[in-house]
């Protein structure tokens, strides 16, 4: 005991005591707290909201306002739901470098998935909105690719091209390519309508419809897509292919003709 008291003025003593006290409190809490599962979940949820609120205050509040009410630099986030947060932050669009410019591009993701979930928990606590879809929602199980193609051409192809290669819109805005986009993010984009994209809520484009569309995109625009012709030239069809044949095919033939005629066959080079 004497040994211990002799060290009570050691610089680390306070830390050791604090740690012991924390462990004791935590242990006692765990021992005595009513351990129903629902309440544990609630605790985890409110913890996530608290953590999300802190992250929000640092990374988002300057544009979206301290309470998510929106400012002149960013829209209100009340009621956008967890899906919108997971999409915007999960594709690196948020936090945006600037609110100026035609549209916010997708870039390197700077938050971990855990942090994104905490932010999403905080934002969805501000008002009800679409939640983050699960693998069962966007997975390939039970999807109809042909129906998905039909739905894609009706609802999406006007901006994103027939096979999701993307396309131009007005004044520098554009519909991005859907190649290599996580199916979860495609699902969330349809649900929430990020930036200038209109939303396709479950009431007008059912959950099954969304699953079909994602399966179609996987079939026509992914690493596993079978592309018998090779060079697809943007997937635009006969216009770009014809242009390529006329410019590069005929161009190469003309170049060969010029090369043949430019070289003399004479023994005496003049």
């Amino acid at each position, binding site marked *: 005991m004497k040994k211990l008291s002799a060290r009570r003025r050691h610089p680390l003593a306070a830390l050791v005591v604090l740690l012991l006290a924390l462990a004791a409190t935590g242990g006692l809490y765990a021992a005595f707290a009513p351990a129903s599962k629902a309440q544990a979940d609630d605790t985890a949820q409110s913890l996530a909201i608290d953590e999300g609120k802190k992250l929000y205050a640092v990374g988002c509040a300057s544009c979206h306002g301290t309470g998510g009410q929106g400012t002149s630099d960013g829209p209100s986030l009340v009621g956008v739901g967890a899906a919108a947060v997971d999409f915007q932050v999960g594709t690196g669009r948020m936090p945006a470098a600037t609110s100026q410019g035609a549209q916010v591009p997708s870039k390197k993701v700077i938050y971990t998935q855990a942090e994104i979930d905490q932010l999403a928990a905080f934002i969805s606590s501000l008002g009800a909105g679409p939640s983050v879809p699960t693998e069962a929602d966007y997975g390939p199980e039970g999807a109809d690719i042909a129906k998905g193609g039909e739905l894609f051409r009706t609802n999406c192809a006007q901006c994103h091209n027939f096979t999701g290669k993307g396309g131009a819109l007005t004044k520098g805005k554009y519909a991005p390519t859907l190649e290599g986009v996580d199916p979860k993010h495609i699902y969330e984009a349809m649900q929430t309508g990020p930036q200038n994209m209109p939303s396709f809520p479950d009431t007008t484009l059912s959950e099954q419809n969304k699953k079909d569309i994602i399966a179609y995109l996987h079939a026509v625009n992914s690493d596993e897509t079978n592309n*018998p012709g090779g060079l697809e030239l943007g997937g635009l069809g006969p216009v770009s292919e014809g242009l390529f044949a006329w410019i590069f095919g005929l161009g190469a033939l003309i170049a060969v003709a010029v090369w043949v005629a430019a070289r003399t066959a004479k023994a005496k080079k003049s």
Partner: protein
Amino acid sequence: MSSQDIPEENLPAEQDHAHGSAVGVADEQNPFADPGLPPHEHRVQDIDERAAKRSERAVAFLFTLSMLATVGFIASYVAIPADKSVFVFPIGHLSALNFALGLTLGTALFTIGAGAVHWARTLMSDVEVADERHAIAAPPEVRAKVHADFKQGAKESALGRRKLIRNTMFGAIALVPLSGVVLLRDLGPLPEDKLRHTLWSKGKLLVNMNTNEPLRPSDVAVGSLTFAKPEGLEEHDEEFQNEIAKAALMIVRLQPDNIKDKQELDWSYQGIVAYSKICTHVGCPISLYEQQTHHVLCPCHQSTFDLSDGARVIFGPAGHALPQLRIGVNDEGYLEALGDFEEPVGPAFWERG
């Protein structure tokens, strides 16, 4: 060509040595003498038999390569399964069969051409030959005979004397084109009022193209985009394509405060507006809707319409605003049309007014 470019032996002073014969002499009328053809220069193959042999072998090699490529084409057609995929560096994954067929057929055709060009350039005779043109006019005696023959033919046909034959023949020839003119009738009949009316009419429900279910106002969220067709029109109907080409509808919901046009607000239902999906320029389906700006862009010629201001044209060649369909809600709470479009949908036409 300036005088510096002319080899010395071709200058008039050297003309005696020139190859070819028709060398002119400068005189009063023609101050510039015809210099004649430059002397022929030989190729390596003309001088050196070994070089000629080498060229022969090169040409034969190209032709042999073509034969092998043709054999390769047939072999790949037989051997490679149609669904086999292969990775080729700059192009990516593609069908092995397509790639092999294209490569072998391309080689077979190209080497025939390359062999022929090489043959012509190195081995076939390349001596320049000059041929004088003869006069274009025929000799006078030939012309006199043709005139006489024609006169005699006209006399023998008796066209001038037997007027009945002449006149009926002219009549027959003049009438034949009429049959072609009559066939133009098949360009008609005129469409009458088909261009002015669509399937929409009072009380027709707005059916969601995705789910084939009638829409309720609560289904349509602010910022969403939905496409609708008139109730009763099914995809397997014979007339589906013709009818949907006129009746296609684009439904968006705006905040009522954001609607600037009074008539648009009157014809909407709680901010839900229904516009024709057919561009008024040349009739492309137009649905590139930007939900923040409420602009709709036509992908064909970039006409842009402002859906918050009566679908006014704000950019591009379109001449009219998009027609709006007047909508309301029926007793059962479904969105319904309150009539047809007030103006013709789609591009302008001669009698549109």
